[in-house]
């Protein structure tokens, strides 16, 4: 099976697929944004606690007796205790990295030293923040500084306070999870609405589709449907096409009937005059010419008849509702019609059946098919020959056999028999070369399979098979 390109998939699939991809993209961007927002929110609020604590400690730094002293207020850590699993580290130090109080080992960290040395000294100090890997866990530090007057002039004291990030991470996660849930719910709702809308739009397309599919193929009246404006345009276009097709078919029908009249009338005149001449002429040479003209005239008559019949058949298949046709009855009627003609050529026609069945089809076309097939068999039979027509069941198929015992057709010629204007090299009489191609056309339109086999011991067997679901036994 060839790969379906996207643009030929169903409209519903295309719309839902595009909408889903778009919604997925939007939700991914939203999720990333939410994560970022949650991270920043957590950072800002936890950083504020840290810097507050640092400032509270900073307020308690004194310079007494030639040295710094800090009275760490309990309240400084109060705001940090909401996160019970987090550890808090602090350090108070001078610009010269003289340890005052806190975790002295923090002074060994390069990052801490750098931060202290690069800290911009301002009148109104601002808190700065940085991350540090310390004692095996990631810690967020806040640093504030203050200048304190000493006997040796103002000196900068730095307060560092840090906290492990577990609780801020939990909070960040909670925040982003909540937002993610909101986004997913929103996207789901949006998709649902989109699918409902798509269905609503496609419903009118489907309605047209059903209306057209439900019609018989000969109904060319306009479609009547109240639909949205856009769909109405489509309906109008379809209706226009159907009107055009209808008028083409009518023209074809008129043409066929006009052609029949316009061709057959002068031909009848020709035939009548020719018959009169044949009747009256005494000169053998003239008679010979007249006989040749007569046979050419006969071929012309047959060809015109077959061409008109073929046109009529084609037209009927597009304009006439198929009806139940009792095949056995039809075959017998056609056989009886042709039997007299065959007998004139000393060819005997026989019929037998072991199955009675009917099919849905057009009687005129089917009888033309049978006529052509049987006439063909008569044409290729030799004097005193027989033609067997048989209807039977083979497996699940209903089969019609028309067997003649003439010269038959070579295997190499068989494929060409159904071509228009093909004539067998074995033909002993003039044929139009149209009969078999018309028969094949009718067989195809009647869901039958037409094939050629050899008769035993020689001759041609035409086999018309009706597959299982296209015929109905008559009991």
């Amino acid at each position, binding site marked *: 099976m060839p790969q379906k390109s996207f643009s030929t998939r169903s409209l519903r699939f295309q719309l839902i697929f595009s909408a889903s991809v778009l919604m997925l993209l939007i939700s991914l961007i939203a999720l990333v944004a939410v994560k970022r927002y949650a991270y920043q929110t957590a950072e800002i609020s936890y950083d504020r606690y840290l810097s507050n604590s640092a400032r509270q400690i900073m307020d308690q730094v004194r310079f007494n007796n030639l040295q710094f002293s800090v009275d760490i207020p309990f309240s400084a850590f109060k705001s940090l205790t909401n996160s019970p699993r987090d550890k808090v580290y602090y350090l108070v130090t001078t610009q010269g990295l003289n340890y005052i109080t806190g975790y002295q080992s923090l002074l060994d960290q390069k990052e801490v030293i750098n931060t202290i040395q690069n800290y911009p000294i301002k009148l109104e100090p601002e808190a700065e923040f940085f991350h540090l890997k310390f004692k095996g866990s990631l810690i967020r530090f806040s640093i504030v500084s203050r200048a304190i007057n000493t006997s040796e002039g103002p000196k900068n004291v730095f307060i560092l306070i840090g906290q492990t990030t577990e609780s801020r991470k939990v909070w960040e996660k909670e925040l982003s999870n909540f937002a993610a849930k909101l986004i997913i719910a929103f996207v789901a709702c949006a998709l649902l609405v989109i699918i409902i809308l798509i269905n609503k739009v496609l419903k009118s397309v489907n309605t047209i589709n059903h209306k057209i599919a439900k019609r018989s193929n000969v109904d060319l009246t306009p479609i009547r449907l109240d639909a949205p404006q856009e769909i109405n345009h489509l309906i109008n276009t379809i209706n226009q096409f159907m009107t055009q097709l209808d008028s083409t078919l009518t023209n074809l029908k008129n043409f*066929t*009937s006009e052609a*029949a*009249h316009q061709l*057959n*009338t*002068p*031909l*009848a*005149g*020709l*035939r*009548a*005059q020719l*018959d*009169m001449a044949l*009747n009256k002429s005494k000169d053998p040479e003239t008679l010979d010419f007249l006989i040749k003209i007569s046979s050419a*005239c006969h071929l012309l*008559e047959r060809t015109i*008849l077959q061409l*008109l*019949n073929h046109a*009529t058949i084609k037209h009927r298949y597009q304009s006439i509702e198929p009806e139940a046709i009792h095949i056995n009855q039809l075959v*017998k009627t056609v*056989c*009886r*019609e042709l*039997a*007299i003609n065959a*007998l004139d050529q000393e060819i*005997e*026609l*026989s*019929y*037998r*059946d072991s199955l009675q069945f009917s099919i849905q089809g057009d009687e*005129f076309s089917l009888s033309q098919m049978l006529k052509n097939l049987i006439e063909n068999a008569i044409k290729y039979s030799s004097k005193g020959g027989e033609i067997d*027509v048989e209807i039977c069941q083979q497996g699940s198929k209903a089969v019609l056999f028309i067997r003649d015992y003439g010269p038959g057709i070579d295997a190499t010629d068989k494929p060409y028999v159904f071509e228009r204007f093909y004539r067998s090299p074995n033909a002993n009489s003039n044929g139009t070369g149209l009969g078999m191609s018309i028969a094949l056309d009718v067989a195809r339109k009647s869901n039958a399979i037409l094939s050629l086999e050899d008769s035993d011991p020689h001759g041609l067997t035409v086999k018309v098979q009706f597959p299982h679901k296209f015929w109905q036994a008559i009991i």
Partner: protein
Amino acid sequence: MRILIVEDDRLISEALESRFKDLGHGVDCVYDGDVAFSMVAHTQFDLIILDLNLPNKSGEQIIKRIRQHSNTPVLILTARSEVYDRIQLLDLGADDYLSKPFDFGELEARCRAIVRRRQGSDHNDITYGDIEFNTANCSVKVKGDIIELKQREYRLLEIFITHPNRVMSKEEIIDHLYGYDNPPNINAIETYVGRLRKAIISSNVEIKTLRGLGYLFNQVEA
């Protein structure tokens, strides 16, 4: 016989006129629907050969007109090929039709047949080959000699002789032969046909059996 030929195509009309004149009939030719329309009301013909496509009046109108006045046999010539046209024509009261182009031999045979059919109700004798069939005194002659037939065989011969050159199915024969109250036996037909065949063996007419299709009452070429 007096024959009216209504045909606007001169080629056909001329040929028909010449042919029927040669056969010894009186022939009138009309090329226009209006003329034909008034003519059929005033003159009694034995046979009318009528083309359908005429100037001024259509063939259908002329048949209607003919049927208002007489039961003259009418043979239609038509160049149209649709089936329902023909059925419509027969319903209108035409006796037979022939599609153009036609064979003269066939035209003559059809004319003879419809004239005989019309006369059949007036005359009691029907002749086929060398069989003379008399409906009035129920006698059958072969080559002039009376042959004896039983009631069923006589009825069977009547069916055949009124439907010559047609393959009659057994079902059709049964329909003609039996009343509704008489249960038909399809095999009995074979017996009757066998007997009839023996009875007319000396004639030049044969009853041919076509397997699966029926019987054909056919004159054997000498």
